[in-house]
C-alpha cells in the first residue's frame, strides 16, 4: 500500500518509517509563519512557556500585513510588539512597511517556502504553498508558539481526496473558477480534515499563479491542505528564488484515497460565489442582474502579477462605472513594481481605480475599502462570510480578476464576454 504526497512529506519530517492517514504525529517544521494579528498571542504564549530563544531564527517568518499601513493606535501597538520580538530574536524573515507584502504571495515569491517543506502558519490561508508541492497548513497562535519554541508540531495525518482535472479551460476561465466550482460541488466542509490533491492534464499545464490560487482556497472546503505534484513548472518557478534546497515528492501509484473526483474543465464558465458562503457558487451566466458598489482586485488568492495583467487587459481603454469604487491591490512590493514597469498601474489609474499598497486591508474588512450596510462588492478574495468586508448587512461576491474587472466596468456582475 503506497503513500500520498502529503503522507510522504509529513513522514520525511519525522523519524518514522511508515505513517498512515489518521495517525497523530509530531513533525519538524521548515517554516513557521505569523502575522500582526496572530503573532502577538503566539509571542505571549511562547514567553509564558518559558521560551527565551526561538528554535531557529531562519525558520520563522513574521509578516505584518493585515492592518498595514497601521490603521489605528491598537494595530500599531500590535505591530510594535511583534517588531520588538523580531528584532530581539533576530528573525531573518521579518517584513513590514515598504518591504511587506501579503504573506502568502510574499513567501513563495521570495523563495522562503520551497517544494517538499512542512510549513505551518498562524493564518488559515497558509495552505497556499501546496501549489509548490509543499505540505502547508493553517494553525492557531498557540501552535505557532509551540513551533517557534520546539521546531515541531503535532499533526493528524490527513486522508486525501484526489481531484483529476481534464479538458482545456475555456477563455476567461482560470484556476480561481476551478476552485470555486470545486467548493460549490463539495461544500464548505466537503474536505473537512482532509488533503486535496490535484492531478490530471489540465493541472499539469496550469501556471504557478493558478496553482497557488487553487491551493489557497483549500481551507474554504474545510481541508487541512491542498497540494500539487511538483513538476517542470514548479522547477522553473523555484529556480533562482528558492532560499533553501528543495525536494520533489510524488504520490505512489497505489496510494490510498478517501475519494477521487473527476472534473471536466472544458465545461466550466467563469464562476461567482454568492453571499455568504464560498460554496454558494453559480456560473456567471446564471448570476442575474446584481448591481455592485465596489470591485476589489487583490489578496493572497488573486493579487499576483498574472492576475493584474488579466484585469488590465480588460480595463485597458475602459473606465470603472461611475457607481463603482474599483480597488486594485498588488500583493507584494515586487508585484507593484512589475505592474508599474508593464504599464498596468497606468491602465488602472486611467480606469479610475484606487491603487492600494500591498495589504490585507479590505479583504478582511480591516481598512481601506470597507462596505456600508446594504452595499455589494465583487472581490477576487477567498471569503464572503457575513460582515467579511464591513457591515454585517453588506454582501461579498467572490470571482476571478477577469470577472471583477468586467463587473467594475459594467456596474453589475458580469463576464468579460459581456463587454462590447
Amino acid at each position: 500500500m503506497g503513500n500520498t504526497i502529503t503522507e510522504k512529506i509529513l513522514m520525511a519530517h519525522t523519524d518514522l518509517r511508515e505513517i498512515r492517514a489518521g495517525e497523530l504525529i509530531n513533525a519538524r517544521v521548515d517554516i513557521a509563519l505569523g502575522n500582526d494579528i496572530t503573532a502577538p498571542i503566539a509571542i505571549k504564549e511562547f514567553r509564558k512557556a518559558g521560551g527565551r530563544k526561538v528554535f531557529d531564527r531562519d525558520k520563522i517568518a513574521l509578516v505584518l500585513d493585515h492592518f498595514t499601513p497601521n490603521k489605528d493606535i491598537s494595530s500599531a501597538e500590535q505591530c510594535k510588539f511583534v517588531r520588538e520580538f523580531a528584532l530581539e530574536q533576530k528573525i531573518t524573515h521579518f517584513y513590514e512597511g515598504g518591504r511587506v507584502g501579503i504573506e502568502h504571495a510574499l513567501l513563495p515569491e521570495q523563495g522562503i517556502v520551497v517544494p517538499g517543506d512542512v510549513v505551518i502558519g498562524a493564518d488559515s490561508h497558509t495552505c497556499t504553498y501546496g501549489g509548490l508541492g509543499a505540505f502547508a497548513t493553517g494553525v492557531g497562535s498557540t501552535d505557532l508558539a509551540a513551533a517557534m519554541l520546539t521546531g515541531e508540531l503535532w499533526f493528524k495525518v490527513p486522508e486525501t481526496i484526489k481531484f483529476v482535472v481534464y479538458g482545456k479551460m475555456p477563455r476567461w476561465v482560470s484556476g480561481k473558477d476551478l476552485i470555486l466550482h470545486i467548493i460549490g460541488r463539495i461544500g464548505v466542509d466537503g474536505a473537512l480534515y482532509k488533503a486535496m490533491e490535484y492531478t490530471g492534464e489540465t493541472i499539469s499545464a496550469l501556471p504557478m499563479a493558478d496553482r497557488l490560487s487553487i491551493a489557497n482556497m483549500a481551507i474554504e472546503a474545510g481541508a487541512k491542505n491542498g497540494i500539487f505534484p511538483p513538476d517542470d513548472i514548479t522547477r522553473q518557478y523555484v529556480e533562482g528564488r528558492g532560499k533553501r534546497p528543495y525536494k520533489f515528492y510524488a504520490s505512489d501509484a497505489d496510494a490510498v484515497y478517501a475519494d477521487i473526483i473527476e472534473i471536466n474543465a472544458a465545461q466550466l464558465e467563469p464562476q461567482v460565489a454568492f453571499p455568504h458562503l464560498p460554496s454558494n457558487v453559480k456560473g456567471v451566466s446564471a448570476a442575474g442582474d446584481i448591481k455592485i458598489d465596489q470591485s476589489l482586485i487583490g489578496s493572497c488568492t488573486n493579487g499576483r502579477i498574472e492576475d493584474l495583467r488579466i484585469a488590465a487587459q480588460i480595463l485597458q481603454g475602459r473606465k470603472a462605472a461611475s457607481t463603482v469604487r474599483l480597488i486594485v491591490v498588488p500583493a507584494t512590493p515586487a508585484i507593484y513594481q512589475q505592474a508599474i514597469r508593464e504599464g498596468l498601474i497606468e491602465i488602472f489609474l486611467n480606469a479610475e481605480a484606487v491603487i492600494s499598497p500591498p495589504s490585507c486591508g479590505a479583504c478582511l474588512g480591516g481598512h481601506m475599502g470597507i462596505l456600508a450596510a446594504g452595499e455589494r462588492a465583487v472581490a477576487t478574495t477567498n471569503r464572503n462570510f457575513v460582515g467579511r468586508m464591513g457591515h454585517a448587512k453588506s454582501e461579498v461576491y467572490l470571482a476571478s480578476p477577469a470577472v471583477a474587472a468586467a463587473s467594475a466596468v459594467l456596474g453589475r456582475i458580469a463576464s468579460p464576454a459581456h463587454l462590447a
Partner: protein
Amino acid sequence: MIYKGKIWKFGDNIDTDAIIPARYLVTSDPQELAAHCMEDADPQFVSKMKKGDIILGGENFGCGSSREHAPIAIKAAGISCVVARSFARIFYRNSFNMGLPIFESNDLWAAIKEGEEITVDGGAGIITISGGNKQFKIGKIPPFMEQLINDGGLMKHIAKKRGIK
C-alpha cells in the same frame, strides 16, 4: 469534566468572522474580545447569555480564519463549553491547544430547542437534556488530545515535557 448550562443554538457553518469579526482583531485582550463574542451571528448574544451557558453549533462550527481570538472570545465571555455536530479543523485544534472544552454530537442538535438546559459529562462521554432521560453520545477524543486537556493546553504540555516549572 462536567458542564451544566443553558444552550444557545446556532446553525451550520458558523464562521470565525461571526464569532469575532476582524474589525475587533486590533487587540488580543480576552475581555475586549469577549465583549463582541458572536456579534455578527447574534448582536445581542453577549447581553443575553450568562456565565456557564453552552453554545450548540451545527456542522462545521468555527470555519474560516485561524484566529485563536475566536475560542478566546468564547471562553472569556464565560461559555463553559461548545457542542457542535462537527467542528472546522483549525477551530478544533485551537480549542484543545488553548483549553476551551469542545464536544462533537451529531444528534443533539435536532433534538433540542434554544434555552433548554443540558449536562455534558466529558469523562463518561454523555450529554443529557435536563428534565428528561434522553442521552446523547459524544465523539471520542484521541488519547493525545485528552492529555493536552489534562495538562491545561499545548504550551503547558510542552513546558511539562521540557521540565519547565
